[in-house]
């Protein structure tokens, strides 16, 4: 069982799980595509916390390297996602995620 005395990896994992759950619920609840992207960023950051904590606990730099690649992928994801949002808003101003149900503008 988890050792509740002092600061150990379990605390980091619990905090990351809480952050991930908030992000996931936000992604399901909100329908503004921009806020949905921010919720995806929350989930990515929760995973980053897990990588860093486990990397520190295993004494391995691999966790930090994984976080580095997650950062790069998050940056590209945001660029493409926001470009899609801009392209959709050109066709239909003020479109929410619920309005884009067909793959034709």
């Amino acid at each position, binding site marked *: *069982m*988890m050792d509740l005395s*002092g*600061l*150990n*990896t*379990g*605390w*980091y*994992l*619990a*905090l990351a*799980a*809480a*952050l*991930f759950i*908030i992000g*996931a*619920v*936000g992604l*399901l*609840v909100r*329908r*503004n595509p*921009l*806020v949905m992207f*921010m*919720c995806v*960023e*929350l989930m990515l*950051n929760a995973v*980053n*916390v897990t990588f*860093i904590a486990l*990397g*520190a606990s*295993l*004494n*391995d*730099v691999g966790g*930090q390297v994984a976080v*580095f*690649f997650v*950062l790069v992928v998050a*940056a*590209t994801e*945001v*660029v*493409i996602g*926001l*470009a*899609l949002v*801009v*392209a959709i*808003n*050109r*066709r*239909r*101003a*003020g479109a929410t995620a619920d309005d884009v149900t067909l793959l034709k503008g």
Partner: protein
Amino acid sequence: MAEAVFAVAAVLMLAGAVGVVASRNPVHAALFLVQTLVGVALLFILNDAHFLAAVQVVVYAGAIVILFLFVIMLLGVDKAEELRIEPISGQRPLAVVVGAALAAMLGTVILTGADVLSGIRRGGGERALDGEATDIERMGRVLFGEFAFAVEITAALLTIAVVGAVVLTRRAARSDEAAPAGSVGG
């Protein structure tokens, strides 16, 4: 001391995350996102990942959130959104159910499995965190040694993303006539 920093960072992160989900104005959500990202950077510092903490602040809080704010302003969607109406009936109860299920799963895993790894510690070598090198030196050696191919792939990915963003948002001269008259000009 570490416990106090952890507590402050945890409160910052969770309050910011709730703010992102619950704020009606997308601009406020973006600012709450910065708060969460700073909390994550604090946790990185706490785990001696100083380079990643700096990158987190510069790339995430600097570039990515600025990109979000730029698009919010560009599209003019910085109006408050009515959150009380539920667009799809049953969406929110279902989201809460999904959240509770996730919490149950992750909680079980953490409570029963957190100590599985606690006895394991890698030995020395260039990947060990307790060596002489600073964290940025260690990461550089591993990134450009063991992960050199992945770094090259990442460079290609970034190039593709830039080209893709230009292709997606570029306005072709001929497609203007096909666009409906009510579409937003720009």
